[in-house]
């Protein structure tokens, strides 16, 4: 087991506390639960950890209909039934109809993989409870074939949640936990730099200023986050907007291409109204 430490990558800026949480989870082989505002790079973290530690990456995306069993394996009874009708020889080996799930895949991988369980809170309330033993012992039993699947290496498991449901205590107890805070202006500047190394200094500082100003508007339904800022800057660069357009009159003008930042027509209205009021005050 190669024991390299995670220090962020050239595409991903990790804060000290995040690095510590990841390294602790990797060292002890326990799952890491990551929460935070949408768009702060929770999902990306797992990809970057895999990249930095040079491990294979397996993604299990959870939906509201996902069952814990699907992560282990599924028994395809219907195709076995069909094969039996057609007299297929495969039908005698039940193993032919066991479909491996993502956890199985992760457990039996040759290298220690990074497994991302994305948006665990979307699933049914019982979902985390159904995975307790599997995540704890890193093994499970296949009832149909009487086979025990045991992890060759404990995979690095990263779980993300958007806080839509409370997770059970028993589950939380087994994880490390990290809350990705919204980055402060300095970290944000580093993040943007990582993504757009050639960005002009002035455009960057103007854009950041406008961005944090919008975030500070009270009562927004959806405050823009890191990923939205990156999209916006991409647009600004693509449209070749000069820094002056964001500058000075920022209090008077709604920033160009604001559609990338404000995703809700009520928010746009609110923002416009506030601008209107501040303009009237000045006149």
């Amino acid at each position: 087991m190669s024991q390299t430490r995670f220090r962020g990558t050239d595409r991903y800026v990790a804060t000290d506390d995040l690095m510590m949480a990841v390294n602790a989870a990797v060292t002890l082989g326990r799952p890491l639960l990551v929460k935070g505002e949408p768009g702060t790079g929770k999902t990306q973290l797992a990809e970057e950890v895999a990249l930095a530690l040079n491990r294979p990456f397996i993604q299990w995306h959870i939906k509201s209909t996902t069952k814990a069993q699907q992560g282990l394996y599924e028994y395809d009874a219907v195709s076995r039934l069909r094969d039996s009708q057609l007299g297929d020889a495969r039908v005698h080996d039940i193993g032919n109809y066991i479909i491996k799930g993502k956890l199985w895949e992760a457990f039996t991988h040759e290298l220690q993989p990074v497994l991302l369980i994305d948006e665990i809170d979307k699933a049914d309330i019982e979902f985390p409870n159904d995975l307790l033993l599997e995540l704890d012992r890193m093994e499970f039993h296949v009832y149909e074939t009487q086979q025990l699947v045991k992890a060759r290496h404990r995979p690095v498991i990263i779980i993300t949640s958007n806080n839509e449901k409370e997770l059970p205590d028993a589950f939380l107890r087994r994880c490390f936990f990290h809350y990705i805070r919204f980055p402060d202006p300095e970290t944000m500047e580093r993040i943007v730099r990582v993504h757009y190394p050639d960005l002009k200094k002035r455009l960057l500082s103007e854009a950041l200023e406008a961005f944090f100003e919008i975030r500070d508007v009270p009562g927004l339904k959806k405050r823009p986050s890191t990923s939205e800022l990156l999209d916006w800057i991409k647009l600004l660069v693509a449209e070749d907007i000069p820094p002056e357009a964001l500058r000075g009159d920022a209090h008077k003008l709604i920033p160009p291409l604001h559609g990338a930042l404000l995703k809700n027509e009520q928010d746009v209205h609110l923002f416009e109204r506030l601008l209107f009021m501040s303009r009237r005050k000045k006149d």
Partner: protein
Amino acid sequence: MMTEFFRKLRQASIPVTLTEFLTLLEALNQRVTTHSIEEFYYLARATLVKDERHYDRFDQVFGSHFQGLETRFGEVVGATVPLEWLRKLAELTLSEDDKALIEALGGWEKLMETFAQRLAEQEGRHQGGNKWVGTAGTSPFGAYGYNPEGIRIGQDTSRHRRAVKVWDRREFRNLDDTVELGTRNIKVALRRLRRFAREGAAQELDLDDTIRSTARNAGYLELKMVPERHNAVKVLLFLDVGGSMDDHVRACEELFSAARGEFKHLEYFYFHNMIYEGLWKDNRRRYTEKIETLTVLRTFGADYKLILVGDATMSPYEITYPGGSVEHFNPEAGDVWLNRLLDIYSRAIWLNPQPQNRWSYVPSIQMVRELMGDRMYPLTLEGLEQGIRTLQRAR
């Protein structure tokens, strides 16, 4: 030292368990951290705290335990310095020269001592100046000011980036609010109302029926499909607006937006104080575009569930007498209309944003509650859950 820390965390009602504590010790054993206290802090937080709401409390315990700092505070101040004193009001900008001019007072010990003294002497909030505890001054005590050896109290970020430990910044303060009604929570509560029904195109395999049909078909496979399940619950939402409801706008807004996201068949109407012969859908055009209540009752069938939201705080005449309405002359009394509603919609509840302990003092709330057959619930998460249960039960 570590067990003591563990005990203190539990005392601060952070739900830490022995397993988590052992995990922390194991991590230390495996040398996850080097010897810096900052790394240890991050590690301890990731291991022991499982909810960002507890971050702030954890920071405080950590600070007190590993610095011996708060114990000194505690003796003097009791709990904490009232935040109100320190509320962000103004900021002091000093040039580098100014900063150099301000000299440090004695040592740390002395600073603490003086702080205790000042607090004892001081009454009320204070801002500016150079002696008292408050904001934007050059006294060594308080926030948003500058003094090289200052003790900062209740400031969100380190303004001058000096001598602050991470846990002392307490950046997670605003996450530690004991949960009130947020749209998320309401949505989860409303989700219970869902009733699934199968309609539309047959797309899912019906395993039971397939097995049954195959058996009946002498073992030849016969696939049976059924339509997917959809949420088929229908909800009629009546909201009281204006007047005394202004205090509860936020809670109602949240309920409304959650309900709108959760149900496909949601119909909503506004009323004022009590239901009469007219309702409206848009508050700006409430006088011009009134909808007759009877039309509403005819349009939406008895399979709708009725949720009324209002504080039911009004004059009793508005309920019992024709012409009692505060706004117009109503030919029929409010209770007639409410009963008419309840006759059609057997599954109905009234959600009241007024705190429940005040209900008994308002006669009109009592009356409405009686009319509703006791199906009035406070507009809190708990009340909502009770109400939803009633909606499911009543037939």
